[in-house]
């Protein structure tokens, strides 16, 4: 939704606000200019009219009514918008074209719109009128039409309006253009950050090669520099792991190979063969712990995991089938209730996680334990859980069991690297899933909560519900299933 996104952007909001303020400012300016010009125009017209009236009064003083009427007739020939009217005391019209006689002496105003239309050019105009009585009782009125001045005023207001409109539209357009570029470039930085958070540290924010780099370029450059640093650090960590792997595995390889050759050369000696076998087993165990450490480092630091649609139920079914005979041999039982739970994930890593959880459940529970494997989806979160009815883990130790090399029994007699759950935690974190240790009352329930589901293509798993044997009655489990 580009429009909504655009409105949400700070820059676009600022541009719109600017345009609104600009239009408001121009409106206020037009109003003030209108009032001011009107006042100036009136004052100007009044001064002109007063001067005309004084000049005509002088004519009257010099030559009486006759001279005044002649002068009025003469002046009326000019087309400068000044009109006159001389009338007797009884109201009879003597000279001049001013259409109506003012009702009183002094200043008055004729509204041109209210007058009936006529051929007289003076009618239908706004006219400022000054009237005075002469000494013989006649009334002299001088008026000036505002038409020309009004035209000037409206032209002024019109140009003000167009200037304002051009300024507002042009300003908005320019802002949108600039901010559009900014939004695109900020989007580039955001996109690079998102990529990087998914582990693709070779992602970079776009930087313009402008002559004068602006603040966004500076941001993008600083951000890219940071990514490069992080990438370099991760690379060197990975390099160190690879070096350690190489440097420690090579001598171990030789020890193992020499033992191999020795065993081949002395195959007839059963006692030696047995000793070598047990030494090899020890070496293998050391290597397995070492492999687990490398694997953990790899999961945590690997650049990107291949995200594909995976049905947790299919993964769980495969692992459960693999582990079931082994569990039965050791006097335990694996039950499964698998409902479709599609996630975006790495099938190999998820398989490893489920295998580690089952390994854990088999290793740390007494004989006769029932292990319950479930997958499903609730509240928009696909999940997978492994629970058992064994002794469980005291709440005090729940956070600690996720740490490396932690074991509940201090003697460390059980086989295993102590990294199993740490690996599960790392895999969960790479999938942005939450790893929860819950009380299954009795026993432990480990649950992986994923963030968002994806629709799984109809698979064999989806068409049937996977109940293998009866699910054990467990209040916690059954409430979870009904979600």
């Amino acid at each position, binding site marked *: 939704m580009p429009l909504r996104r655009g409105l949400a952007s700070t820059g676009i909001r600022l541009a719109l606000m600017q345009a609104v303020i600009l239009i408001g400012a121009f409106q206020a300016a037009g109003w003030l200019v209108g009032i001011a010009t009107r006042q100036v125009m009136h004052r100007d017209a009044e001064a002109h009219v007063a001067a005309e009236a004084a000049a005509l009064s002088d004519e009257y003083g010099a030559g009486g009514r006759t001279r005044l009427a002649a002068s009025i007739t003469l002046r009326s020939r000019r087309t400068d918008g000044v009109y006159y009217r001389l009338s007797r005391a009884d109201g009879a019209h003597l000279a001049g074209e001013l259409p109506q006689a003012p009702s009183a002496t002094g200043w008055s105003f004729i509204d041109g719109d209210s007058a009936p239309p006529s051929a007289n050019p003076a009618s239908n105009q706004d006219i400022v009128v000054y009237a005075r009585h002469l000494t013989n009782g006649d009334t002299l009125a001088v008026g000036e039409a505002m038409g020309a001045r009004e035209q000037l005023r409206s032209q002024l207001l019109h140009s003000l309006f167009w200037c304002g409109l051009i300024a507002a539209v042009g300003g908005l357009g320019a802002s949108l253009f600039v901010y559009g570029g900014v939004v695109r470039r900020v989007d580039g930085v955001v996109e690079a950050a998102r990529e990087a958070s998914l582990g693709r540290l070779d992602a970079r924010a776009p930087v313009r090669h402008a002559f004068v780099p602006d603040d966004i370029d500076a941001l993008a450059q600083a951000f890219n520099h940071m990514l490069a640093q992080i990438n370099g650090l991760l690379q060197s960590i990975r390099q160190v792991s*690879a070096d350690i*792997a*190489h440097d420690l*595995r*090579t001598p*171990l*390889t*030789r*020890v*193992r*190979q*020499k033992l*191999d*050759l020795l*065993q*081949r050369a002395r195959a007839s000696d059963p006692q030696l063969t047995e000793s070598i*076998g047990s030494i*090899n087993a020890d*070496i293998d165990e050391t*290597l*397995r712990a070492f*492999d687990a450490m*490398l*694997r953990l480092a*790899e999961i945590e630091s*690997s*650049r990107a995991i291949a995200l594909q649609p995976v049905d947790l139920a299919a993964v769980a079914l*495969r692992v459960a*089938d*693999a*582990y079931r*005979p*082994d569990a039965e*041999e050791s006097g335990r039982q694996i039950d499964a209730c698998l409902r479709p739970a599609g996630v975006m994930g790495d099938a*190999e890593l998820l*398989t*490893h996680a489920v*295998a580690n959880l089952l*390994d854990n459940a*088999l*290793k740390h529970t007494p004989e006769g334990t029932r292990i319950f494997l479930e997958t499903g989806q609730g509240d928009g979160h696909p999940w997978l859980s492994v629970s058992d009815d064994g002794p469980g883990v005291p709440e005090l130790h729940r956070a600690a069991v996720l740490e490396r090399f932690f074991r509940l029994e201090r003697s460390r007699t059980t*086989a*295993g690297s102590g990294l*199993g759950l740490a690996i599960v935690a790392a895999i969960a974190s790479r999938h942005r899933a939450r790893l929860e240790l819950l009380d299954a009352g009795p026993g432990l329930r480990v649950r992986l909560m994923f963030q968002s589901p994806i629709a799984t293509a109809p698979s064999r798993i989806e068409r049937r519900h996977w109940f293998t044997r009866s699910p054990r009655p467990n209040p916690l489990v059954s409430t979870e299933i009904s979600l």
Partner: protein
Amino acid sequence: MQMRILVIEDDQQSRDYILAALACDGHDTQEAHDGETGLRMACDGSYDVLVVDRMLPRLDGLSLVRELRKSGVQTPALFLTALGSAEDRVAGLTGGGDDYLVKPFCFEELTARLNLLGRRAAAPRGGVLVCRGLIVDRLRRRTTRDGTPIDLKPLEFKLLEHFMLNPDRVFTRMMLLEQIWGFKFDPQTNIVETHMSRLRAKIDLPDQPPIIATVRGAGYCLRAA
């Protein structure tokens, strides 16, 4: 079966061990100490299998196999490396390698994989597989021993089918985990051992040697005769 094998490995002790052990099994071996020499020797295409270390001086193993494939030589290659990470494994297999072995390996693991690579084309095909009275019908997914039907679970059937398709070849635990279960990690439990013993209990007769024999220290192998 005797194979002509080129071992490209810079570490002298590893190389000597691999050569000694392969010679012990009657294979014809040659050696190269760096990537460039290895590439030159492998280019004539006269070898059955190549054993290539990932970290080599002058030309690394991955580039070597890539170059080789570019020039049209399709000799199967097995990578050896100390790097066991999935990323490296994927890089190795997409770069033209056919299999991947992480150091340290025991000799049986190496020979088992080399045998499978070198004789890949010779695998028997067909709908019905027979071995000493054991008949596996791949289409109907039915198994009989001397006429008596045997009820196998899907995974057990898959396991048996895998062995029947590759008679007289040794499969190590790691190979089976990869090929049957698709596990690219080492589970801490005895998955393979348990499945194998269940399968054997169903297909073997008490008075006869087992169809699938245990190769001590190495893995399992179906004995055709």
